[in-house]
């Protein structure tokens, strides 16, 4: 059965402003916090003068150092901890990067806190630093040696097969650092209720916040509630404990007042994670018809000095095609920045830009049509494991997309197509893939005598529409109106709240909800299918409000993973499951037009055809595609976090100077879904969509620019000077 076309269940709240985001709360007696941050690239604070800050009327606290007994390190998310980085500011005199907090000010008003933060003066001992991956002082390690649990993908003997290949492509690509810049600033309201700590923060990982801050402050996690019903854009920037929460909680305890912190936009460029710089050398060996014989993917990937943020680029580039020999080698380059992290399509975006650009080069080198070359290299089997893909409709994405886009009208010769106004026209194609991961989940469901059904489940509403997808599933299953379904997500009081990211949110929550529905039906004495008269059934049970609780895990996941999830630890599994490998797939088609003289690059239309399994919520899925494609266009043509190597840190730290795409940059975005459920993965058949929709867009744009101009673009963003 296809899902009916219903809107967002929370649209009215969002549009009318009644949806309450993390820092919207203003409890009585609220105090306001602000950080003062380091103004050097690296070194130590010799002294911090806070006298002027303390003298500002209304200032209650100026904190520059916590004791290690009261505030412990939070641990790195990818190293068994809870936080986006292991470094906890305000524990020592070390300044690891520009913009690191060096003092926390709490005052009666935001104005006073801000003024005081500006008056904090530090004396520093400056040390040499390196921010760029090629800067003197940047050091590197091979990932497979430093992090053996994140091995490089290796299949067959890629070097030998490449050397023996009749056609060889060898290209190097550079992807810049980028920041997530969600509309909602990083912010929290922290409040003690007796010994109980309540954190209101828009987070994608309430579970890690709960357990992380408990570990930092030596609290029982059961005494910490984290509440995150809505998120004004996550994109990976809110996927872990942030270093402000511990200090904020301690300040609130000292003052016996709730404390709010909204980190200003400029500071967010240094206080949270970002997409690191990466460089990709892609070598493709093929026969003269373009059939791939070998692929090598060498990546250099920026990380911080204090954490090894792993690269996973080769996870998808080894699976896009039937490549019998694949050699991955990933190198981590340590620089003096905050730890980079997951920004929408963190690995897959840069990896697909590089790999799919090289595949386009191969198509031209062998005289093949870029769509046909991709179809000829299709595979139903995972070349890395030999397992079948749980579902792979990539060929259908390509053929359906080519027809819908009018690909056959394309003259393949570069520079051959012109618009009526003299602009160069280019059409480009690229594919994308995203691993399907599934996390354990807990779902609680209750039915009331008023006929309403309440479901609380693991998951966070980031705007992707998880609340709508859950409500739709319940409404359809029970045959109740969707407005009678109450969904509670992002709340540690109803479920552990494992990280929602990696496009696994819906695929994780829905199977648990589905299972809870089966149990609830039993409790209500209803059959396993068919419409349920909920109010009557509840009355017939003789109980006020029957409630069920179920758990679910990913395919083949041991039940112990639930214990990890309940402890706030990362516990998603995939994309390799015991009997299959699971990815979602997409084909992207892009038209660019380049002005004849001033060479502005425009994207009048883009098409995404996605295989994301069953489409759980058509309205929000469509929104996901538009958002993803816009992100891809912005990645390809706009965004770059600029570094002046003399100063460190990032320089363009405002929404004016950090150029995300604006409405005027975006024209027609068309899309289509294969909409075939992946029933090997789960009964619900949902894979993942949110990140998939941007993966391949940048390569399709770059390939279209090549088609328009004959110039290859191996570095993002592609700007006017690159096509002059």
């Amino acid at each position: 059965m296809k899902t009916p076309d219903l809107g967002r269940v929370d649209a009215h709240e969002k549009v009318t402003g009644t949806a309450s985001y993390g820092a919207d709360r203003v409890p009585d007696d609220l105090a306001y916090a602000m950080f003062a941050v380091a103004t050097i690239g690296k070194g130590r604070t010799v002294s911090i003068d806070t006298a002027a800050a303390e003298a500002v009327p209304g200032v209650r606290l100026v904190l520059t150092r916590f004791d290690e007994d009261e505030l412990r390190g939070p641990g790195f998310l990818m190293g068994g901890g809870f936080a986006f980085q292991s470094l906890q500011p305000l524990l020592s005199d070390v300044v690891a990067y520009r913009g690191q907090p060096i003092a926390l000010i709490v005052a009666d008003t935001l104005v006073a806190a801000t003024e005081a933060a500006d008056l904090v003066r530090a004396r520093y001992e400056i040390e040499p630093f390196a921010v760029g991956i090629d800067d003197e002082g940047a050091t590197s390690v091979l990932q497979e040696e430093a992090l053996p649990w994140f091995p490089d993908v290796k299949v067959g003997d890629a070097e030998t097969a490449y050397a023996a290949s009749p056609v060889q492509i060898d290209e190097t690509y550079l992807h810049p650092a980028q920041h997530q810049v969600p509309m909602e600033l990083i912010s929290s309201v922290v409040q003690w209720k007796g010994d109980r700590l309540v954190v209101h923060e828009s987070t994608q990982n309430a579970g890690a916040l709960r357990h992380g801050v408990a570990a930092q402050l030596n609290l029982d996690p059961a005494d910490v509630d984290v509440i995150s019903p809505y998120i004004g854009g996550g994109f990976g920037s809110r996927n872990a404990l942030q270093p402000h929460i511990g200090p904020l909680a301690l300040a609130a305890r000292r003052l016996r007042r709730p404390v709010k912190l909204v980190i200003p936009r400029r500071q967010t460029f240094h206080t949270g994670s970002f997409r690191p710089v990466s460089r990709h050398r892609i070598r493709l060996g093929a026969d003269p018809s373009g059939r791939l014989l070998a692929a090598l993917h060498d990546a250099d990937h920026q990380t911080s000095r204090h954490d090894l943020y792993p690269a996973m680029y080769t996870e998808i580039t080894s699976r896009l095609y039937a490549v019998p020999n694949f050699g991955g080698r990933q190198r981590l380059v340590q620089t003096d920045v905050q730890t980079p992290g997951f920004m929408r399509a963190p690995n897959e975006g840069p990896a697909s830009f590089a790999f799919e650009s090289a595949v386009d080069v191969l198509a031209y080198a062998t005289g093949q049509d870029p769509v046909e070359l991709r179809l000829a290299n299709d595979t139903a089997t995972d070349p890395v494991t030999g397992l079948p893909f749980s579902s792979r409709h990539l060929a259908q994405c390509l053929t359906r997309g080519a027809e819908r886009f009018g690909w056959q009208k394309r003259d393949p010769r570069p520079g051959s197509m012109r618009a009526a106004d003299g602009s160069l026209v280019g059409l480009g194609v690229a594919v994308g893939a995203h691993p399907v991961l599934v996390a354990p989940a807990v779902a609680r469901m209750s039915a009331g005598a008023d006929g309403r059904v309440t479901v609380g489940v693991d998951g966070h509403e980031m705007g992707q529409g998880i609340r709508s997808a859950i409500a739709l599933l319940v409404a359809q299953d029970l045959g109740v109106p969707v407005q009678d379904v109450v969904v509670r997500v992002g709340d540690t009081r109803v479920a552990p709240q494992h990280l929602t990211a990696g496009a696994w949110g819906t695929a994780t929550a829905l199977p648990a909800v589905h299972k809870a529905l089966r149990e609830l039906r039993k409790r209500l004495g209803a059959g396993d299918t068919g419409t349920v008269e909920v109010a009557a059934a509840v009355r017939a049970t003789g109980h006020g409000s029957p409630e069920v609780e179920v758990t679910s895990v990913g395919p083949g996941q041991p039940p112990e993973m639930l214990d990890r999830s309940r402890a706030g630890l990362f516990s998603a599994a995939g994309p390799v499951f015991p009997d299959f490998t699971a990815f979602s797939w997409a084909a992207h088609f892009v038209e660019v037009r380049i002005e004849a003289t001033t060479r502005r690059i425009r994207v009048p239309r883009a098409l995404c055809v996605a295989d994301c399994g069953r489409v759980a919520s058509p309205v929000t899925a469509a929104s996901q595609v538009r958002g993803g494609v816009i992100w891809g266009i912005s990645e390809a043509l706009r965004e770059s976090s600029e570094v002046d190597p003399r100063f460190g840190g990032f320089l363009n730290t405002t929404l004016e100077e950090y150029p995300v795409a604006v409405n005027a940059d975006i024209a027609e975005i068309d899309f289509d879904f294969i909409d075939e459920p992946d029933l090997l993965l789960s009964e619900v058949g949902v894979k993942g969509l949110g990140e998939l929709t941007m993966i391949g867009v940048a390569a399709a744009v770059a390939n279209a620019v090549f088609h328009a101009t004959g110039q290859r673009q191996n570095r993002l963003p592609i700007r006017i000077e690159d096509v002059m």
Partner: protein
Amino acid sequence: MRSFAYVVPDSVAGAVDALAAAEPGTKILAGGTTLYDLMKLGVEAPPAVIDIHRLAELTEISTGEGELSFGAGAKMAEVADHPVVRRDYPALSESLWRAASQQLRNMATVGGNLLQRTRCGYFRGGAEFGCNKRDPGSGCAALEGLDRTHALLGASDACIATYPGDWAVALIAFDAELDVVGPRGERTLPLGDLHVEPGDNPVLEHTLAADELILRIRVPATPAGRGSTYHKIRDRESYAFALTSAAAAVTLDAQGTVTDCRIGLGGVATRPWRATAAERSLLGEQLTMGTARHAGEVAFADARPVRTGAFRVELGIRTVTDALLTAGKQAAR
């Protein structure tokens, strides 16, 4: 941000009195779109601001009697959307439409916009970055830094910050004048005399006295207005400062010969830049791709390329070329 006194006069005369009595460094507040931003960044720290945004006598717009006149307090959005301006002076209207965002244009005034300060990242970035404009004698971090959008014309060894505005670039092409008022009464100056190049004192950006206030902007009527356009090239399609921009206006006789030509350059110079030699190169010529391009080359003949933004010399030439050809089409309509 520091505490400051906030003064709200009820008339222009009251504003002049308040300004005369104010502490040094006091600022006039109109739309607030630049001043508040810079105060939050700590770049501006006035002891007092004098809020003139409610003074109705500053908001008059008139379009008759041989000139256009815009009260300094008129909003950018109002002037951009004025039917006479749109019809007879498209370059003026377009320069406003292509600036900032609708929200900002609804707040910002046409007087305040003339004095918008540079977007140089080192000027705005904080005390740790050398900037002779913000902190005289501290050096210019941009000279060896991220200079992709810095000035190609009118720069000095002390400062290469670009004047960011669009409106003044269009106005300068039309010989606009300013009426200003101070304790010594009113005076008039050409807009071309308002802004100054940085030289060895980049702090000084304009020639208004500390106690003077802009009353209105006047533009002499000219048939060249109809044959005009404002062409702005930037890193995205909206809400961005110019990489290069050009205000162009031409008058053509019946044979298509250029009898009047005006060219202003934006995004490339330390002040709104009038390209007079380029204008002269077109007088008496037919307007063709070749002559327009030649005018562009003349306009940038003295350009001193910045290290990472050298492409903007050629881009600027092409921007002028396209702007002139569009202006020519407008003139022939």
